[in-house]
């Protein structure tokens, strides 16, 4: 999946990946896609919880080698 921007959250724990995702999306345009890369497995549950609450769109969570690549589209 192609993203407009990549946010590296490797080595970061709750709440930082979600806080950084929120801050990064704030700086992006409506409809743009952000790829968040994280290795705290809490993100598997936290990102859907966060997008569900904020109205951003969770497109995909890819897991490979203990890394989660999460694609979020900014709400418009």
């Amino acid at each position: 999946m192609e993203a407009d921007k990549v946010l590296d959250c490797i080595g970061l724990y709750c709440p930082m990946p979600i806080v950084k995702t929120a801050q990064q999306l704030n700086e992006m345009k409506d409809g743009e896609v952000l790829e968040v890369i994280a290795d705290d497995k809490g993100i598997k549950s936290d990102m859907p919880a966060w997008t569900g609450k904020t109205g951003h769109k969770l497109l995909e969570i890819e897991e490979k080698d203990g890394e989660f690549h999460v694609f979020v589209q900014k709400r418009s």
Partner: protein
Amino acid sequence: MAKEKEMATIVVFSGELDRALAAFNIATTAAVMDIDVTMFFTFWGLNVVTKEKTGAGDKNQLQKMMGMMNKGGARRLKLSKMNMFGGGKAAMKKLMAEYHMPSLEEMIPMAKELGVHFLACTTSMALMGLDEKDFVSEVEDFVGAATYVEKASRSKINLFI
């Protein structure tokens, strides 16, 4: 009419590092989930948001004594368990840095930037002889319980830490 934002209120009663970290972890998360968060600092919790050097307020003899034994400032807080005269706290801080976790001193301005409201309890301030000038700049107002209860009554999330 725009929908009123959901609200969360957190009473920070405790003045220990671990408890304060938990409070700020939840506060910052709720703030980025589009929730209007208010932290109400009271009693020992005032120590989380006081400057390290206080003394702006008029203190009587007892308050001065208490102030010497109960110094404020986020950096000074102890752990609620395993503090071991600061050794446990030092170990915890070292581990947190190793795992790239923000310190409490970093989380306070971060919460503010995310829109978290900081209120301090005037009754506890009077009791401890603290003045508005004794608080860090993040604290935006000095209020009583009615202000907190009114906000809590409109909040779905309401914590006492």
